[in-house]
């Protein structure tokens, strides 16, 4: 805080930060866990791909050609 105008702005900002309503950590953590559980079925890093074909980056070698 180097100047009065800067100080006033900081104090005003801190007042708003102090006055903001806070959720309990118990509720916040429950919500985060619920979000991960609801969306994990679609998370390919956790669940993997149901089939290699669904992986847009599937190994190029899985494009198979038959030599006739």
């Amino acid at each position, binding site marked *: 805080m180097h100047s009065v105008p800067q100080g006033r702005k900081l*104090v005003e900002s801190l007042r708003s930060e102090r006055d*903001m309503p806070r959720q309990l*950590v118990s509720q916040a953590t429950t919500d985060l866990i619920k*979000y991960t559980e609801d969306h994990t079925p*679609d998370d390919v890093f956790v669940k993997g791909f149901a089939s290699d074909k669904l992986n*847009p*980056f599937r190994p190029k070698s899985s494009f198979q050609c038959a030599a006739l």
Partner: protein
Amino acid sequence: MSELDQLRQEAEQLKSQIRDARKAANDTTLASVAANLEPIGRIQMRTRRTLRGHLAKIYAMHWASDSRNLVSASQDGKLIVWDSYTTNKVHAIPLRSSWVMTCAYAPSGSFVACGGLDNICSIYSLKTREGNVRVSRELPGHTGYLSCCRFLDDNQIVTSSGDMTCALWDIETGQQVSAFTGHTGDVMSLSLSPDFRTFISGACDASAKLWDIRDGQCKQTFPGHESDINAVAFFPSGNAFATGSDDATCRLFDIRADQELAMYSHDNIICGITSVAFSKSGRLLFAGYDDFNCNVWDSMRQERAGVLAGHDNRVSCLGVTEDGMAVCTGSWDSFLKIWN
């Protein structure tokens, strides 16, 4: 007492009251609430593509919204737009300044932006009538290096800078619409909320700040880290965010509880984190480290679930696609790798 001394005293009192209010909301820990969650098992991901072409350290990368193209920036003085499915280079854009530190892809796919030690955010049009790529706007105004930039849309971009501020720009007019001031150290990184109404900044003052994009105000400040914050990323729900720091830890902060919920660290991790990103469900947190690795953390159980090893130098940047199908890591070894 001078007015300045009074204000200093009041500021300290308010900070103490904020600490108390946070403590009052701190009725449990994520560790205890997540204790019964099923572990996700070892995450084993493979390199599916290696993007070769840069001739020097890669400093930044950003996926396009199509989850297929991406842009990377290197101190070889080039931005390269890649088709990650084929590894083809769609565009190789020579930069006016080679000291680039950040790059971004517009959601529409029509523009990319970059900037660095030139203090300027340069916007490049990818879809000109002539078919070439050219600078469509330069945004001077920051008095320090450009550390990060992210498009809201084709006409608005948010930047963060070594001059300790962030800014919202109108690209058409080239003017700063809002300046976000309050950090007391270089701002290193920013992350837009999923609804584009707010963003988080991380700075060398060891704090992260939540800003309202429309009114320019700092809504919340999150202390906790013990050194520079290099990276920030929103949790997919928009109600939390992760940070990565030179203090060798990543942390999870909740916006509605207004405090730190978790730390991701280990005694044998002693180097800084350069980049962080969540998987689509938020359950995995990817973090790039100075020791050449990328660790994959179970964000809820706070355990290391896997490692992406394959780079021969620092992992400087990483990003997860919008469709959640792949993660890209970029390194000082000049390569980008795509993993899933």
